[in-house]
């Protein structure tokens, strides 16, 4: 238990201490929110979709979580580089616990980031349709955060190359984000894009968030929860396995 806690609190401390990183990672979601929200808002409304900001906000929250969570993997590469990884690898604690602490820590940071973006959305004019559902929305944020932190960290545990990591991440993050229904409704899409969205776990995360925050949904909320929960669990297990096999 102690090791999980230490790995968790360590990431929170680092996050809290690096205010520039905190602010910097907010720039992108805010830009997307403002540019797309106000840019496409009038067209969206004319097409009969209603308030675009209300539609977009859950997608942007999911996006900020996706980015922060995936890039958490870089912490593992830093640790490998600056040696702290070895300190954890020779410690008499199970690597499963180290990995769980790492994933929970990264996911907590990503969720906080998502929450900050949620507050910014409120400033821009987003209104949740029902306050009672908000705790459920945070549950979804956390699950999305776990899923993608585990994914980023799994990839990082197989990589020792600092340059390769951001490249691979962008290669993965962009399609996951754009094909998730974060920016547009999933109704009436061409077959190819529809299939891509259906096999994309973030689609279910975005959908669950959108249901709990804006009252709109494409899939079923229980399906959303089930898919995100199951895949988060699966990838955490894979990540733990990969981490336990690290030799230096």
């Amino acid at each position: 238990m102690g090791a999980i806690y230490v790995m968790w609190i360590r990431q929170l401390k680092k996050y809290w201490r690096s205010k520039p990183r905190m602010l910097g990672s907010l720039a992108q979601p805010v830009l997307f929110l403002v540019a797309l929200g106000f840019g496409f808002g009038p067209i969206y409304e004319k097409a009969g979709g209603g308030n675009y900001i209300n539609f977009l906000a859950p997608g942007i929250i999911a996006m900020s979580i996706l980015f922060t969570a995936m890039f958490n993997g870089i912490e593992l590469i830093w640790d490998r580089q600056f040696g702290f990884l070895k300190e954890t690898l020779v410690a008499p604690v199970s690597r499963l616990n180290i990995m769980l602490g790492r994933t929970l820590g990264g996911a907590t940071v990503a969720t906080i980031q998502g929450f900050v973006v949620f507050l910014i959305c409120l400033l821009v004019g987003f209104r949740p349709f029902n306050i009672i559902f908000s705790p459920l929305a945070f549950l979804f944020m956390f699950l999305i955060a776990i899923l993608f932190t585990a994914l980023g960290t799994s990839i990082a545990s197989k990589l020792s190359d600092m340059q390769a990591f951001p490249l691979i991440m962008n290669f993965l993050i962009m399609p996951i984000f754009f094909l998730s229904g974060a920016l547009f409704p999933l109704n009436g899409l061409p077959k190819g894009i529809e299939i891509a969205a259906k096999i994309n776990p973030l689609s279910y995360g975005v959908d669950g968030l959108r249901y709990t925050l804006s009252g709109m949904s494409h899939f079923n909320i229980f399906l959303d929860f089930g898919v995100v929960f199951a895949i988060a669990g699966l990838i955490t297990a894979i990540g733990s396995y990969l981490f336990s096999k690290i030799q230096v």
Partner: protein
Amino acid sequence: MEKSIIEVENLTRIFGKINAVNNISFNVRKGEVFAFLGPNGAGKTTTIKMLTTLLHPTSGKLLVNGFDPLHHQSDVRNSFGIVFQDPSLDEELTAYENMEFHGVFYHLEKKLMKERIPNLLKYVELYDRKDDMVKTFSGGMKRRLEIARALLHHPKILFLDEPTLGLDPQTRNRLWEYVSKLNKEEKMTVFLTTHYMEEADKISDRIAIIDHGKIIKLGTSKELKKQTKSKTLEEAFLKLTGHTIRDESASSIDRLRTQGKIWMGKGK
């Protein structure tokens, strides 16, 4: 003969085509200072990694404090403290936090930590800086902190992999004083590697000279000098391992580290 605390039998590790450690056997006695000397790429670090559960051997038998590193990892890990060749601190945490986290990893009680951490930090003269980020520390301070950290859980064996690399003579002397004292007062077994022959000569009870993954000679400094008819250990070392300069291929980690230094503007 005294009881052995480390037993190594026919240990081999192969990386691809390279035989990094080639069928070596040796014992380290309880309470002795044992030095592993060898040119770059001789297999010193690889051996330490296998003894400390970081790397699996290709073949051979290992016992550390009576436990097999392959099957009883936690028991082995509880038995030793280690100062790695490269730093292994979290630079974005304070000195105290680094110590504290180590204590949690080794299941120390809070009360015990509150007692031991300040003492150890005072011992390595870092107590005044305990709340400073490690990234503001000099190389010598980091080393001292790593030693303090390695001692926190009162290990039976202390592994030191080139602990004095890049340190000034003052710090090097202090460091060996600490180690000597611990060895004498706490009866702690010390397993070290170094490139500084004088240091090894001064502090070690027995020395193994390793080259190309094989142990060439093992004995006290006196025996090594006598057998090679040399005046100093360095002379003996050169006679045994030759004068050719060894190329050690940089691992991806080394390259990464260089890159990181460029990134973070820490051109050291």
